């Protein structure tokens, strides 16, 4: 198999790689915020629940979580494994990344000076207004570098979808590597991920720059 054929075949899976990546971001970014807010709840059972969630999701391998979400329903309830593996894959990625995002959000929220809350309170802002208008934009700016780190990791982690044979780029590459006893597909995969992350780094850099019109 020629290098060109390998590249073409593997790029056919890039759409699915991107699907995991973008859908995970779309779900995990808000879900992480919810988990972070629950963790900060003054109602103990709620914060305990969020802490346990974070602890378990961060403390076990993403690969196991992928397997559990994809095949768990079959073993537990005898529900047939869904044809479209994208759904369980995105669920597993989203709940896993939400745990990491939640901790990043928390670090940002905790780093906000109390004076911002006090000024908002005296000016009569409601708690929700304070959070959305005053706190969140500043938190987002503070955590952007940490968020970029996680997003770069997510790009590479999409390759774990091979464990449930979801036909994304790396899964296809691995299949070619096995059938052709060739290392070339892995090199191609490495280049694909690197280019993807260069783009991610560029985009996040632009966002950071756009948000740096003020100093804290």
């Amino acid at each position, binding site marked *: 198999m020629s290098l060109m054929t390998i590249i073409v075949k593997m790029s056919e899976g890039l759409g699915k790689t991107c699907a995991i990546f973008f859908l995970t971001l779309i779900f995990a970014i808000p879900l992480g915020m919810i988990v972070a807010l629950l963790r900060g709840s003054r109602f103990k059972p709620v914060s305990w629940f969020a802490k346990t969630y974070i602890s378990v999701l961060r403390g076990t391998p993403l690969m196991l979580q992928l397997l559990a979400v994809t095949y768990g329903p079959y073993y537990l309830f005898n529900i047939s494994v869904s044809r479209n593996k994208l759904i369980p894959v995105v669920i597993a990625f989203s709940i896993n990344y939400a745990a990491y995002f939640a901790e990043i959000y928390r670090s940002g929220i905790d780093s906000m000076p109390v*004076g*911002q809350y006090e*000024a908002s309170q*005296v000016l*009569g*802002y409601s708690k929700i207004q304070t959070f959305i208008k005053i706190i969140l934009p500043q938190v987002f700016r503070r955590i952007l570098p940490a968020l970029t780190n996680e997003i770069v990791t997510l790009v590479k982690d999409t390759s774990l979808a091979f464990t449930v044979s979801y036909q994304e780029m790396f899964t296809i590459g691995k299949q070619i590597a096995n059938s052709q006893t060739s290392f070339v597909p892995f090199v191609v995969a490495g280049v694909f991920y690197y280019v993807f992350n260069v783009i991610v780094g560029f985009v996040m850099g632009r966002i950071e720059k756009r948000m740096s*019109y*003020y*100093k804290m």
Partner: protein
Amino acid sequence: MSILEMKNIEKSFADNHVLKGISLHVDKGEVVSIIGPSGSGKSTLLRCATFLETIDSGVISYDGKNAAETVNGKCTYAKNLNDFRHIFGLVFQNFNLFPHYTVLKNMMDAPVSVLHRDKEEVRAECIALLDKMGLAEKANAYPCELSGGQQQRVSIVRALAMQPEILFFDEPTSALDPELTGEVLKVIKQLAEEKMTMVIVTHEMAFARAVSDRVIFMDGGVVVEEGDPEEVFGNTQSERMKQFLRNYDRET
């Protein structure tokens, strides 16, 4: 009539009894300065008046309506505290401007999104206010682009944009170097001449003496001396305040 009336305020932080049954009333158009050593409870009193701290017991009322009252030893706050918050403004020692908003947005946002006032009307008012304070060209600047003195002046106009009946200052010049202190004091003085009702916690003795209608000397969570500034400074009665002023003179 008193705009603010605080009666028998008690406040402790754990074992630290900070306010010991203190009372304070402020009439319309009056400028009251609160002076005293660090830890005397003056900032805490202001933070209680603005609901940033909750009192343990006592009464806080604005315009004759109780915001906090104590019945049978149990202190309760009014449900509509935000309605009371519209009555006063607070200027913080370290400004607490919103760094991600321009000067104009800092001023306009609360009147528009809290008081639901007309945006264009508020904008016109705020620009006029900035103009008056000599900050017109800074309307679209971000707080980080301003000097400390300018930031504090912006935080004063931000408070004024809410059209408060009474304005509190919590050591408004303590975070500023002497050069910048002057421009902030000038603004406060200007407000005093316009008969703005103000309560100022300050370490600027000469300023307190010049600008106030009444001076309160606090120590150890109680009012030690209170009255006309000339009387309080010129003819100090209590030994504690004499000592405080002596120390103060030595420092400056």
